């Protein structure tokens, strides 16, 4: 006997009402109601095994999967209910349960084997629950009564039952259901069947109860022998789905001799027994019956592998997996890659060593018989997040699991903190000191503004682009690295050799030094993310021109093989650049310092100058920190900051669910501030016009204030957000757009690379040169050399004049047709 791996044998004491797991349930849902009832009655009365074996058990849910428990239902089972694994399906008891279900006639109380669960009580409890449960006392009809009516109307097959409702209504029933799911669910189905037949006699389908939303969900790796035959709820990610397996439910045989068709033969413990002889009285031919495939009834079955999600895996472990068995409607309910929450019954099945092996392995395979499956994708914290404004209803009505709600609550609590902005700033790259304003800017970039798409097709980006320019050693790169790690879909690339598009890359070798570099495409990869570009200044002309398009249109066009493809690249750009000299020269403009075209520069919302001020205090802090890092308990270094996962969660949530709008007050403030900013350029009594802000700035300001509102999880942009946005912009501009000659902010420095004062100076020079030439040179007369002109000008003028400046001035004059330039010689015409 020991060698028997086939489950049927193991069950089989002749007296054991085998595998009743299937029979009662099968009756409940397979055949048309009345017939089933009648049949059941017939079966029930004698406890004759042979009768049990014959009734068609077409039940989809649990049969055909012998379980260890059923193995022992024969002898040991009744006695030893106590051991966890011993909880047998013991549905022999469920049989009487159907009596109970039918109700009145069955007098003696029936109990589920080995327990004190009275079938009758459970039946009544379920009935009560279904009839009377109301979410809201004002409702006249119970929630599930409505649901049942609804199902009858649409001819549905399943009734979703929220386990929380069961618990709220009758916690005892809930406990029984979780501990003895097979039995209780069988009763559940019977109750449902009776109810439907009372409501509508003609309704022939069988409604199954699908339980979901258990109060506790078990981590996959904690499933252990004591959970067997219990109802469990686990979360995970589907990694494989088998193809659909047609599972035979009812077989029909035909006599090859006389052509007689047998009655449908049900599946008994995974087997269909072929009738040994023809049933027709006249024929009675032996071994003449053959299966007729197209008259058999099949059900869908699917085996699905579920794997732990990364957040559940302890360090140094690999993900666990578990098999799910799906039936009927659940087949193909999930696809590989879906994150799901599954409610089902944990079961074990003995393993055959091999089809021909006689030796029994002492092994069991475990799987979960699936009752309900729910996709939890919506709750994923790192979900594909969108800055675009979707229909608000789209994400609001989703039912989200409880623990996600908890998390959200936590995040919302955080958002309520008055100092959340500062706290987040502190949490951002805590290992980098100072630079608070830069960090605030980066924070805004991470949260992002709202993208807007007008019906006309015009769109406004919500992404904030930031450029950091600064001396070497000012932790620009570290900031970049940090953001790259934090940002959704962050891509990090070095400007040196970024080819901007394409998924391939190129290994290049510097011919002189032998240094190897990697040319990689990054922008496309960071769609909806942040593209961090280090050494922006070293980027090739070609790649940079691509950035123009990315930063304003948010697309990348690739021309390949005659086809121009436009790929989405809705990415924020965070770039950092080193000054072209080894150090930043404060006397020159940003553009002169980093040699970037002004057109590109103006597309950055914020430009920060990180200048190394040779601050001994800062150095000391750095030194202290590093020494501590190496020789002390690193835990003690942390201050009051959010940890990285919380920060990421906070960020993802805000990006996904918070879409702030401008309040009227904020809009007014924005207008006022902008006008003020513009006016600052007009010095009273001065004719020179300094542009301190352009329309681009107002867009930036809107984005920044939206991001600031998002940080607070606020749906409205308030006045103080706008004020802070102005402050951030001003801080950035003060650093990068200040004209050092006059000390005022001049956007021209960024938009054209030339400040207003510089422009005036140039204009002055041009007119001075013109005057000089008018004086010195005859029309069409002999030419003169530019060096001589320079000498003259120096004699006249007070200001320092470079040859270059003069050349520029001469070029302007030549453009006017005033002079002719031939190499170094100047001729008036």
């Amino acid at each position, binding site marked *: 006997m020991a060698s028997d791996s086939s489950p049927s044998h193991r069950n089989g004491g002749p007296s054991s009402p085998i595998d009743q797991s299937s029979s009662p349930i099968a009756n409940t849902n397979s055949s048309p109601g009345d017939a089933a009832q009648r049949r059941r009655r017939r079966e029930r009365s004698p406890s004759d095994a042979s009768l049990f074996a014959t009734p068609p058990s077409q039940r989809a849910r649990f049969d055909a999967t012998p379980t260890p428990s059923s193995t022992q239902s024969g002898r040991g089972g009744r006695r030893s209910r106590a051991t966890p694994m011993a909880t047998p399906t013991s549905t022999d008891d469920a049989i009487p349960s159907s009596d109970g279900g039918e109700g009145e006639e069955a007098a003696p109380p029936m109990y589920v084997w080995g327990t004190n669960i009275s079938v009758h009580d459970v039946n009544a409890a379920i009935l009560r629950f279904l009839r009377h449960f109301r979410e809201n006392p004002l409702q006249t009809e119970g929630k599930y009564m409505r649901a049942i009516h609804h199902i009858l109307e649409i001819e549905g097959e399943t009734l979703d039952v929220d386990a929380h409702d069961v618990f709220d209504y009758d916690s005892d029933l809930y406990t029984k259901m979780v501990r003895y799911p097979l039995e209780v669910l069988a009763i559940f189905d019977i109750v449902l069947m009776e109810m439907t037949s009372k409501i509508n006699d003609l309704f022939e389908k069988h409604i199954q109860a699908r339980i979901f939303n258990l109060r506790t969900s078990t981590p996959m790796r904690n499933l252990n022998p004591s959970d067997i035959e219990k109802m469990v709820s686990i979360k995970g990610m589907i990694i494989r789905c088998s193809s659909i397996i047609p599972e035979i439910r009812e077989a029909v045989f035909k006599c090859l001799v006389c052509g007689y068709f047998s009655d449908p033969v049900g599946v008994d413990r995974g087997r269909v027994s072929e009738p040994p002889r023809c049933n027709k009285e006249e024929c009675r031919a032996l071994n003449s019956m053959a299966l007729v495939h197209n008259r058999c009834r099949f059900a869908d079955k699917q085996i699905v592998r579920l794997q732990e999600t990364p957040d559940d895996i302890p360090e140094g472990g690999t993900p666990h997996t578990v098999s799910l068995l799906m039936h009927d409607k659940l087949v193909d309910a999930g696809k590989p890659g879906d994150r799901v929450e599954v409610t089902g019954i944990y079961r074990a099945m003995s393993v055959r060593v091999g089809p021909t092996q006689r030796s029994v392995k002492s092994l069991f395979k475990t799987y979960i018989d699936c009752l309900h499956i729910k996709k939890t994708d919506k709750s994923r914290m790192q979900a594909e997040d969108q800055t675009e404004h979707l229909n608000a209803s789209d994400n609001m009505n989703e039912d989200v699991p409880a623990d996600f709600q908890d998390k959200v609550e936590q995040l919302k609590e955080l958002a309520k903190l008055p100092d959340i902005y500062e706290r987040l700033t502190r949490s951002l790259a805590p290992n980098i000191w100072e630079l608070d304003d830069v960090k605030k800017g980066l924070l805004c970039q991470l949260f992002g503004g709202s993208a807007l798409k007008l019906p006309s097709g015009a769109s406004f980006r919500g992404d904030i682009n930031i450029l950091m320019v600064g001396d070497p050693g000012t932790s620009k790169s570290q900031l970049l690295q940090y953001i790259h790690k934090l940002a959704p879909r962050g891509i990090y690339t070095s400007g040196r050799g970024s080819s901007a598009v394409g998924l*391939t890359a190129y*290994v290049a070798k510097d011919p002189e030094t032998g240094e*190897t570099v990697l040319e990689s495409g990054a922008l496309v990869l960071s769609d909806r993310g942040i593209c961090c570009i280090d050494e922006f200044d070293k980027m090739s002309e070609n790649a940079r021109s691509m950035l123009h398009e990315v930063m304003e249109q948010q697309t990348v066009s690739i021309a390949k093989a005659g086809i121009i493809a436009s790929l989405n690249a809705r990415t924020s750009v965070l770039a950092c650049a080193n000054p072209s000299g080894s150090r930043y020269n404060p006397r020159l403009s940003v553009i002169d310092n980093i040699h970037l075209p002004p057109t590109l520069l103006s597309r950055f919302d914020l430009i920060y100058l990180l200048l190394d001020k040779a601050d001994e205090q800062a150095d000391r802090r750095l030194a202290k920190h590093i020494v501590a890092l190496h020789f002390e308990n690193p835990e003690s270094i942390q201050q009051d900051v959010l940890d990285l996962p919380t920060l990421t969660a906070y960020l993802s949530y805000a990006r996904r669910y918070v879409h702030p709008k401008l309040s009227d007050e904020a809009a007014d403030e924005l207008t006022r501030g902008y006008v003020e900013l513009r006016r600052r350029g007009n010095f009273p009594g001065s004719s020179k016009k300094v542009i301190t802000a352009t329309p681009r700035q107002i867009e930036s300001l809107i984005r920044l204030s939206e991001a600031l509102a998002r940080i607070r999880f606020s749906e409205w942009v308030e006045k103080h957000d706008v004020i802070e946005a102005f402050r951030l912009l001003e801080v950035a501009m003060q650093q990068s757009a200040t004209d050092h000659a006059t000390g005022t902010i001049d956007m021209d420095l960024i938009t054209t690379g030339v400040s207003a004062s510089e422009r005036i100076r140039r204009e002055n020079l041009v007119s001075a040169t013109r005057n000089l030439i008018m004086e010195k040179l005859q029309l069409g007369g002999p030419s003169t050399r530019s060096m001589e002109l320079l000498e003259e000008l120096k004699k006249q003028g007070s200001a320092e004049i470079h040859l270059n400046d003069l050349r520029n001035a001469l070029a302007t004059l030549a453009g006017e047709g005033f002079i002719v330039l031939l190499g170094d010689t100047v001729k008036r015409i």
Partner: protein
Amino acid sequence: MGGIPFDCLANPLGAVRITFERAISSGSDPKTFNGKDWGAIEVFKECLFDQNGLSQVPILDSSTIGRIKPNSLVRFRGMVQDMLGNELYVGAFKDGSTWRTNKFTDVASFPMNSSSEMSMWERRLLYCVPVPGQSPWVVEASSSAAAASSEAAINRGDNWASQQGEKRRRDDDTSVDTMDCNISNHEAKGSPSSTKKMREDGLPCQAFQSHELEIGETSSMQSVIPDFDTKSLSCLVKIYDSPETELKLNDVFEFVGVFTFDPELVASKNETDDSDALFEDELVNLPPNKRVPYVIRGIRESLVGYLTAVLGNDGVAAQSVLLHLLSQVHTRVDTVAVGKLSLNLTGFTKETVSVFGNQLNLAIQSLLPLTQALPLTVEYLNTASLAPKKDYKSNRLITGSLQLADGTHLILDETQLNPGTLNSTGVENVQILKSLMEMQKVEYDFEYYKLEMSSDVQLLVLSEGKSNILPADLVLPFQPSSVGSSLNADANALQAWRWYLATLRSQPHVIDPELQKVIENDLVEARQEDRSLGSNDFSRWLTMARLMSASFGETSLSLEHWQMVKELERLRKNRLK
């Protein structure tokens, strides 16, 4: 065997059974065991560790597998390559009216009646492979040890019954030999991966009470993982009674267990040798080898001399390599792996690499127990699978070149890398290498998501110019002045060096507050002078200081060693100019 009435070594299952029956008869209810130990492990512990039984347990490997009898106690050393999850089995069942147990075995020892009462327990499955990158000397040593001990075991098996008296003495002799061998091995390899790794040979371990005993079951599956040569033996290990957290992926362990070879499974494609009842031992600390400092200084000096010779008389490089060989990740803060010191020797050409690169490679192989070398070429990057990847068809983690046990040394030869286009695999591989360089983390590909696994691999990059693909902590232009002559180090010296590297690597290290001040001041001063210095440089200096001090066997940093690091750094800077 003392007061133990059963033979743990030859018939471990018998011993298990006896203890089980004993427990039952003393009134325990097997249903309440729930898979927990009932006293069997105590017996094995006593037998193996208190009575020196461990050395007589044969080591299971490809050379001994043919000779070891099924259901005997074996040792298997390997790295946890994959975790196959948990498995439910019938732990105890009633045979008539007696309880039987199936613990530590796959096949029921008594007929299991289908209807009998049973109790289901749980065990963990681990797939273990021989540690990748074992240096020849380690393999040699362990196989000789294995041969010796299995010899002993086999002798014992053959002669146990008949000629006990005479033969036993002989056996003892053999096992004494084995023990010697083990000791020297141990000293030599010295548990290279330090923290808690390799539990080498058990014998030295006895000085400690830190055995974490696990009983498990092994079965090996050859030919499942094609990357390992077929001679090496992989093993399916079944672990009983172990808390989940104790065993991690890529940990190296020696398991003691019952060997089960299931010929039926051989037929069904997986060649499965099971062994059962495993103890898995962890070496928590290194033996406190009290060698006097001057001995260490001596060893250090000779080792630096050797390295200098290997590196063509480049003393600075030799010093740097020494520090590099001693490096190890000791803490992680955020994404920073503190303590790593990857080294990039630049200035190699294709010609010099064939001379010095090879020499260095051989030298490191002879010094460290776990070494690997990867030649970087565009083709290799485009085709290799560096990170392990889960194959859901076979439900196995397919190993990659970078699935390495902690403490492995890896040489990346970049001189072979020519310009060329990388495909997406190549790009991914480069990113993986980079993240290993920078953070000591490898992303394992589980298809639906990636999982970051911490690693601790010493990385040495040989390149022409500074490698920007593989940014190392320490970049040093290599300047050999002569081609090394004869480099054969004698065995004794090698042994000493191996011991030195293994032991000093994991010593705790502190810095006293006064010196902290000095260092802080130095750092501030350095930064005032050279603004380009950043936290990375400082971090490297401190790592080097720690290693420098460790290389002299000190446990706290002294000013002298700090100065040495600064001097070394100065010399390096000069070369970079």
